C-alpha cells in the first residue's frame, strides 16, 4: 500500500514538473493540444525551421515566431464541454 502511495506521489511530482505527462483522465483535447504546443514550440525553437516557414509565408522571422506563440494558446480549438 505504501508503495502504491509512493508511486502515486512520484507521478504527481513528475506531472507538476513536466508538462504533458498524462494520466488516465487525459482527454483527447488535452492530448492533442499538448502535442500541437510541443510542435509549435519546436518550429519556433529550431532556427532553420523558423526560417523555412518564414520564407514560405513571405514574412519576417519575428512575425512567424509571434504567430506560432499565439497559436500555442489554443492550438486545437476550444475545449469541449464537460458534462
Amino acid at each position, binding site marked *: 500500500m505504501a508503495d502504491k502511495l509512493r508511486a502515486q506521489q512520484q507521478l504527481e511530482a513528475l506531472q507538476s514538473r513536466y*508538462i504533458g505527462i498524462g494520466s488516465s483522465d487525459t482527454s483527447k483535447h488535452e492530448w492533442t493540444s499538448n502535442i500541437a504546443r510541443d510542435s509549435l*514550440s519546436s518550429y519556433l525553437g529550431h532556427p*532553420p*525551421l523558423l526560417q523555412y516557414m518564414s520564407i514560405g509565408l513571405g514574412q519576417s522571422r519575428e*512575425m512567424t515566431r509571434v504567430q506560432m506563440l499565439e497559436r*500555442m494558446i489554443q492550438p486545437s480549438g476550444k475545449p469541449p464541454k464537460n458534462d
Partner: protein
Amino acid sequence: MTSFSTLSLYSLTVKPPSATQDAISGDFIGSGKQQILTANGSRLTLLEVSRRQSGFQELYSQDVFGIIRRIGKFRLAGGTKDHIVVTTDSGRLVTYEYMPDERQFKTVHFETFGKSGVRRVVPGEYLAVDPKGRAIMIASTEKNKLVYILTRSGQTDITISSPLEAHKPQTLIFDLIGLDVGYDNPMFAALELDFSSAESDSTGEAVEELQKELVYYELDLGLNHIVRKWSEPVDRTAHKLLRVPGGPNAPSGVLVCGDDNITYHHINNTKSQLRRLAIPRREGSTEDPNRKRHIVTGTLYSLKGGDFFYLLQTEDGDVFKLTVDAPKGVVLKTKIKYFDTLPLATSICILRAGYVYAACETGDRVLYELESLGDESDDPVFDSSQFPTNPLDRDFAPPFFRPRELTNLKQIEAVASLNPVMGMEVANPALEDAPQIYTINGAGGRSTFRSTRNALEVLDLIESPLPQNASGVWTTRLTAEDETDTLIVLCLHSRTLVLKIGDDVEEASNTGFMLDTNTLGVQQFGEDCVIQIHPKGIRHIQSIQFAEGEAVATHQEITDWTPPAHRTIVACATNNRQVAIALSSGQILYFECDSDGSLAMAEEEVALDSSINCLAMPDVPEGSVRAFFMAVGCNDHTVRIYNLSPDMEGNILRSISVQGLSSPPSDLTINSMTDKSPRGYSQYLHIGLMSGVYIRSVLEEMTGEIGDTRRRFLGPEPVTFTRIAAGGEPAVIAMTSRPWLAYTHPRTSVLQLTPLNYIPFKSAWNFDGSAFKGVICVSSSELRIFTFNNLLDNTTCESISLRYTPRKFVGYHDQGTFFVIQSEKDTMGASSRQHLIDQADGAMDLEHTNGDTSNGQPEGNELPPTEFGYPKATGQWASCIQVVDPITEKAVVYTVELKDNKSAVSVALAYFESRGENEYYLAVGTAKDLQFTPYKFTSASIQIYKISPNGRELEFMHETDMDDPPLALLPFKGKLLIGTGTDLALYDCGMKSMLRKALAPKCVPNRIVGLKTQGSRIIVSDQTESVTYAVHKDQVHPNRIIPFADDTVPRHTTCTEMVDYETTVGGDKFGNIWMVRCPTKVSEASDESPEGLNLIQDKGFLGGTPNRVDLVAHFFANDIPTAIQRTVLLSGGERVVFWAGLQGTLGALIPFTSRRQHKMFQQLELHLRNEDKPLSGRDHLSYRSYFTPVKGVIDGDLVERFLVLGRDKRESIAGQIQGAWSSEMIDEAIWNMRALYAF
C-alpha cells in the same frame, strides 16, 4: 565476428551556414575596442571591424556542435572584457571567455539545467542578462524560468550560483530582457500570457479576454530569492521588449512593441504615465495606408553623457530612430523619426567606432558607416503626445513618412552570404576545369542567382598593355638593403625590357642589361649587384643607380660570363649568394658570391646523362652564407637533391637523394612555409610535372631527405611555380591551365591549395612596391598586378539580381542558361503595381499644382525593390519566370510575368519525342490564388513554353488545367511526368494541351513534391512520407506506373537524388540527410516482367506498397537541405554527394573507399568526441543523432578539429588509434579527404 555496413560516408562542410540567429557587439578581447559576435547555425564567430581596412575581419570562428539559440554578454564590475553566454539545445548554460592569445573560447561555466533538445519547457529560447552582469535569466517558451547569480570570487574568477526558479505554469513567454536598474537588485522584465483560464472554458469567451502582461521579476541578492515584483496588462499584440537605460538621472523602464505601437512602461506607472507612439507607415501610391507595421528588431545605443537612442526596424526594413525626452529621469515624451531603410535584419549592432552592422535575414550581411545621427534630415518627427495611451483607441491620425535613399548611413561592405539557398545545381556549362556551383538565393527583392567557384578572390591593382607578348617577368631590388623593388624585367620575344618602378612605371635605359636576348632569370646578387641570366651567359652588373626621378641609370662594371662553346643555358636557380645553371649538355655549374660581389665558379660540377628541365634553390637561410641544397629536375622522371654546403669530406654537389616521378618535372621551387610543425615552419620542395600534377614534399633542412609528400592534379598543362608572399606569409603560385596558390591557412596553419579566380598567366613574380605589395604577372600582352583579399574564404561568388523569391530552377546547359521560377506571397503583382503608379502619375498630371513636387525623383516611381521590397497586398501573388545567363552576359536575359494571381510552383526542361528533335520546352506548374494553412487554390495548370534555339527566349504555347497544383515535374522517356497532389501521371505534349498517357492514382499518401528517375524507375518523394519507388511499364496499353517500395519512417522530404539504381539520398525539413536503399531482390523483381503483372498482384503491406526500403545512412546536419546532387567537384576528382542547406551551408558526403582509412576515421571520431568535447556542452553523438540515430556517417567537421588541437592531445589521440597511425599520417588522411574530393 564484426559485421560491416555496406556504405560509410564522410560528411564535410564546404561552406558554413551564413544565416545569423543573433549578433551582439561587445569587447570580447579586452582591447577597449568593440567586436561583433555572431551565431550562424552551430558556429560562433568573432568579427572585428577595422577602420584601416574599412571592413570586416574574422578573428575567430568555431563550431560548437549544438543548435545555438541565443547569445549574450556580461561583464562584472571591475572586469576588463565581456564574457559570452550561450543557450543551445544542450540543456546547459555555458559561458565563455575569449582568449586572444591562445585564439580559443575558454569555457568558464558549464551548468546543466535540463534535458537536451529544443523543447517547450526546457529554458533556452530566451536569454536575458543583467546590464551590470550580476545575473542571467533563461526562459522557455512556456512555464520555466531560471535565474543564475554571478559573483566575483577572488581577482579573476566568476562563480555562478545554483539556479533559482521563477516558473509559472500555463504561461507563454513572448520576450524577456534584463532591466537597467543601476546597482539596485537585478530586475528582469518578461512579456507573459497566462492562458490557464482558457483551458477549461468551452464557450471560447475566455480566450478573447486573455491578457498579456508585462511582469517584473526582482532578484533579491540579499535573500537569494526571486520575486514577481510587479505586473501590468499591456497591449495584447505586444511581442518585443527593449530596455531603457536606468541609474541616476536615467528613466529606467521598458519599451513594449506591438501591433502598430511602441509604448514606454515604467514600474508602478499609472495609465497617464504611459508614452505611446504609433509606428509610421509608408506613403506611396502602391502602399496600403491601413496596413500596420511591427517592430522586428531594434537596438539601444547609449551616447557619452547619458543620452541614448534606439534604432528600430519594421518588417518592411524601415529603420526608425526613437529618442526619449526624459529630463531628470522622468519620461515626458518619446519621439520617432524615419532614419533609413536597411534590408530586414535579425540583429542590428551599432559600434562605438561609428559602424552599423545589419545581420540580414536574407542575402548579404551589410556593414554601414554612420554618417550622421539623423538629426539633420527633414523627415517628419512624431511624438507620444500625438497618440492616445490606450492601444485599442484608434482615434488618431496615423503617421506617414516617405521612404528614401540612404542618407544617414553609408554602405561600406557587404559580406557575401548564400543564405537562404532555395536551390542548387553543380554543373559546368562554362566549360571550365572544375564545375561551378549555381544557386538561387535570397527572398523578396534581395533575391539573387549566384555562381560559386572554388577559387581565391584576388584584387586587381594594375592592368597595363605591353608592346608585344611577354613570356617572363621578374622584379628586383638594386641592393640587398632595399625595402622595395625598383626594376621590372620583362622577357619579350628574344628581347628584354627593363622598367623602373617610380611614381609611375617607365622604361629604364642604360641599366646594363643585355636587351637583345631572352632572359632566364634576374637576381639581386651580393651587396649591390644584379645578375641577368640569358641563354648565352650570365651578365653581372655592379651598383645600378638612378638619380631622383630619372629613368636613366648609371652603373659600374659589367662582367659577362659565357658558357663553353656550343652550349646554352637551359635552366637556372639563384639566390642572393648562389647561382646554379644547367647547360644544354647536361652539366650543372655552380657559382658563389665572392667577397667583392662577383661570381666565383666552383671547381666541382655535375654532369648528368639526361637533359635537365629545371633547377631550384632556397633562399639563403638567416645566419648562413649559403643555402644547403639544390634540387634538379631531370627529363628522366626524377628529381635529385645535391648538397651545396661542404659535407664531412668537404665535398659539394654530391647527390643526396633521388625521387622518381610519374612524368618529367616541368618546374621546381623550394621555400619555407609556416605550418603545424613544432618549429612553426618547414622547408618545402614543390615539384610541378609536365602532366599537370603538383607534388609538395618536406625537404629536411639538415639532411636533404624528402618526406611527407602530397600530390594533386591541377590542370592539363605543365606546372610552373613562382614564390610570393600572400598575406605576409610565404606562398607559392602554381601556374598551369589556371593559376593556383599553395599557402598556409591563416586559422588552422594547414597548407592549402586553391585556384585563383583570375585569368591564366604564364609567368609571375612577387612585387614589393612602396605603395602596395602583390603579385606581378604577364598574360599575353598585358601586365597585371594583383593582391589577395582574404585567404580564409576559398570560394568566390558572382551574383545576378532576380525579381522575386526564387523557388526552383532548371539549367539548359547546351546554351548555358538557367530558367528560374520566382514567386512572392502577399505581394502586389507587377501589373497592379504599374497600374497604381500610372494612376498616381495621372492624378498628378491633372492637378499639376506646384511645379516640381519632390526632390528630383518623379513621384509615384517605384522604389528600388532591392532595398525597399515590394508593396504588400494580402492574398495576392507576384510571380515570374526569368531566364538567366550566368556565363556570357551575366544577367537576366528574359522575363515572363505570370498574370491572374497565378504563382509558379514547379519547372522542368522537357523534350517531347512527339514534337520532333532538338526542340526543348519549358514546363511550368502554376497555382492560382494559392494559400497555405489551410492549403487552398482556385485552379492549377501546366504551362508549356517553347524555348528559342539560343535558349534565351520563351514563347508561350498552351496551358492545361490540372486538379491539383503540379509541384513536381520531370522529363521522362520523351514525355513529362507530373505529380499533382497524390497522383503521378505521364503526359505527352499535344497541339493545344497536354495529353495524359498513364496515371498512378494515390501513388503517395500526401502530396508529391519531387521526382527523380533512372531508366524506368521513378523515385517519388512525398511531402511527409519519405520516398516511394515506382516503375513505369510501357509495354502495355495504357502504360502503367506501379509503386512497389516505400519507407517506414515519415520523412518530410525536401530534396532527393538517386545515388545508384537502388539507392536514394535525400534531405528533410528538420535538417536530416538520409540514404535509403531498395533491397536487391525487390529491385530485380520490379524490372522482371514487361507489363508488371507480378507487381500489381502483390498485396499492399500495412496500407503502403508491398515492399519497404532499408535505411543505409542518416545524419543530422542542422540545416535544411534544399538541394542534393551526386557530382564531381574538382577536375579529376571523384564523385561525392553534394548538398546545399537553406541557411547557406554547402556540404559534401564522401564515400570511403578504404577499410583501413574508414576504421581510422571511426576511431578518431570516437576519441575526439571524448577528448575535444563540443563547446556547447552538447554530446556530439546525440547532436548528430538529433531526430534519428546517426548511421553510417562520420562527421568530418569534428574530425578536422584534430588539425587544430594542441600537440600533446594530438599525440595522445594518435597513440590510441589502432593500425600504426602517426599524427602526421592522420593529418595527411584528413587533408586528402578534403583536397581530393571537395575543397
